[in-house]
Each structure stands twice: as C-alpha cells, then as structure tokens.
C-alpha cells in the first residue's frame, strides 16, 4: 500500500473515500511518528478556526434583526439569483397585500361594532409613535464626547500619567493596552456604558488643542458604522474583538488619518 503525503493531507481534510480513509488510518496506526505530524495538521485547522471569531460575531443583534437567523455555514439558499430574488419579491408583495387586506377587514369589523354599540363616537386620542434608532458605538462615542470631553476639571477619571490606568482599564473593559495616537497626547480615561459591557473612553488632545475621544468596547452584533451628530463626527471600526469609535470636532479626513494611526 502506497501512502503519499497528499493522501495524508486529504485524510486530515476529510477528502478521502471511506475505504481509502480506513486504509490510511490503519497505515498511520502502525507509524506513530507520522501520525503525530498528521495530528499536528489537524490541530492547525482547529487553531485557525479558533483564531478568527465565528460568523455569528458579525450578525446583527437580536433587537435589530430583520432577517431570520443564519446557520454558521452559508447555505446556498442565501445566494439567490436575480430570478429567485424576483420570485421572492413577488411572494413578499403577495404576503403584504394579504396581511393588509386581513387588517382592513378586521378594522372594519371592529369599527362596525363600535358604531353599533356607541351612540356617539369620542374622538380617538392621538397616538405618538416613537422610532428608536439602535445606537451604535459611534453614537455612544459622540454622546460621551459631549458629556465629558470639555469638562474643565473632570473630563477623565484617571489621568494619563497614573500608573494604575492600564490595569484599571483592563479589569473594567478588557482593553489590554492603551492605544497610542500619533500627533495627539493621551489626557486620560474613564469607563462609560457600552452596548453590553462597560466601554473604555480614552481622551486625547491634539497639538491644536482639539479633544478627541476613542471609545472601545467588546465587539457585539454587526460591524459598527460611522456616524455624525452636529459638529461631531465619529469613525467606527472593528478590530481585535473590539468595536472602536473615534469622535471629535474635526474633519472626517482628519479623523480618518488619526484612526489610521490606531490601526483601524
């Protein structure tokens, strides 16, 4: 029986037909030194899967989900051709028409009963419907910048020179190191509310005295998106298992270049 290296790799990756797989397994059982190498390749595969966050880390949070949950592996049904998409759209449109018709019939019945039982209809109270936008790390960074950045005495809880700063941030937020921003000095940090867990709020000051906030919190849900609010813009990105947002009263181009120095 000839077993080549190629067979061993195919064995690790589940590429061999069952009969051949059994042959290779038997062959390996008699050669422990080769079996160790093969086991190492299998471990490499597992290590690679562990290295990168699972697909679920990129899914939207349940509160804002509008699509049914996807399996970890992409299903071919997710890859709709234009023709299939068109069919799906038609089906959706039909469903919407049916729902609207059912709603209208229901409303008509209720209204008819009201008219029959009440001699005089009171004016219906006005109902205010509030739409709540899901806030992302960029919005939180803008809000935190507004709340703290220009506080003359208590902008941060722990100043940059304090040796306990790094350990405190690590304990509270999981941030292993305080990012350095080229062209700006760290003023200090505080902890602010994040989406799920506490976020690190790091305040920097540029050479021209502009105060820039970097908010870092554990990655959750869909990748973050940038935002702006009035004169404050926030650039958001995901890296190393954390969502980052850089916010300040400076141009987006300058925010971009500062974010570059942080490895966005």
């Amino acid at each position, binding site marked *: 029986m000839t077993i080549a290296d190629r067979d061993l790799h195919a064995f690790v990756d589940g590429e061999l037909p069952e009969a051949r797989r059994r042959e290779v397994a038997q062959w390996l059982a008699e050669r422990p030194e080769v079996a160790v190498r093969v086991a190492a390749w299998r471990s490499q595969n597992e290590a690679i899967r562990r290295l990168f966050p699972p697909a679920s880390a990129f899914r939207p949070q349940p509160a804002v989900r509008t699509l049914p949950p996807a399996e970890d592996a992409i299903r071919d049904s*997710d890859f709709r051709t234009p023709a299939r998409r068109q069919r799906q759209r038609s089906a959706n449109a039909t*469903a919407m028409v049916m729902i609207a018709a059912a709603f209208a019939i229901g409303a008509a019945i209720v209204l008819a009963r009201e008219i029959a039982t009440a001699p005089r209809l009171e004016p219906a109270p006005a109902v205010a419907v509030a739409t709540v936008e899901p806030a992302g790390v960029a919005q939180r960074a803008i809000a935190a910048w507004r709340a703290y950045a220009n506080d003359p005495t208590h902008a941060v809880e722990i100043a940059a020179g304090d040796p306990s700063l790094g350990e405190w941030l690590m304990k509270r937020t999981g941030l292993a190191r305080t990012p350095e921003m080229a062209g700006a000095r760290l003023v200090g940090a505080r902890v602010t509310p994040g989406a799920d867990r506490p976020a690190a709020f790091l305040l920097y000051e540029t050479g021209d005295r502009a105060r820039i906030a970097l908010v870092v919190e554990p990655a959750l849900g869909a990748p973050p998106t940038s935002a702006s609010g009035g004169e404050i813009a926030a650039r958001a990105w995901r890296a190393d298992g954390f969502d980052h947002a850089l916010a300040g009263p400076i141009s987006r181009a300058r925010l971009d270049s500062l974010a570059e120095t942080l490895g966005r």
Partner: protein
Amino acid sequence: MVEDPVTSIDPRTGELARFAGALAGAAGAWAVDELTAGAIVAADETTEQAGLTPRERLYRELIRLNRRRALAAPPKREDDAPLRRAEDFARRVERLPLEDKEALLLVALARFSYEEAARALDIAPRMFAERVMRARARLDCGQPVAPPRRPNYLRLVK
C-alpha cells in the same frame, strides 16, 4: 416584506467577513469590511459562471479583490525575515504567502472541499493540494521557512 436597509444584513456577511478577516485582517477592519461588501456586490453582479456555485463565486470575488489590494499595498519590510519557531501562530498564518494562505483558509476556515476550492481559485485540484501542503509545511514549527515570495496573482485569477 420590505427590508430596512439600516438594520438588515446580508446573510452572507458573517462567514465572508470572517474569511476576509483571516485573509487580510492585518490591513485593518475597514479593509475587511470593504472586501466583504465588495465581494458580495461583485458576485451579485457577475453573470453565471459555468461550473461555479454561488458560494464559490463569492469567495472567488473576495480573493480576487484581496489580491488586487495586496498588490497595491507596499510590501512590509518585516516580510523579509524568516518565520521562526517561537513566533506566534497567528503571525505565522498572517505571514504565509498569499496563495498558500488562501488555500489553507479555504479548507480550514471556510471548509471547502479541495474540488470546490480549486474551482473558486480556478486552478487544478492537484495544484490546490500542493498549496495546502506548502502552507502546512510553513506553519509547521519544526524549521524556519523561507521568506514569502511575491507571486503574480493576476495571472492566476481572471
């Protein structure tokens, strides 16, 4: 049902972004986002390619875009240094030659079969297997390996 463009997310995004992060994570989160979105758009716009499943087409587009990005990016100086035994596994994966890294990630992370992956890369299955073997040999901590070369990616993917 009408999808809300703000809160809806393409179901392909998660797995594809994971693969893009593995392939080009060192280039930053925005590069990964751009690759992911770009591949989805390109795959949707591409007319049916003979013999390719939609999933294979999507990964082919992602790999093509990443190769273009890699060619445009200046090579890092540290790439000339040989990989060493004690080097962190993640760094070793990151510094694999791109063709070998693509092959290994397609199998290990995206769980493509050799045949599917070879189709996505538009190469023969035997050549694909060679790349996987080469990647594993380089990741193997036994010996320092040669510095990665800079192949002509455009020649290999249309």
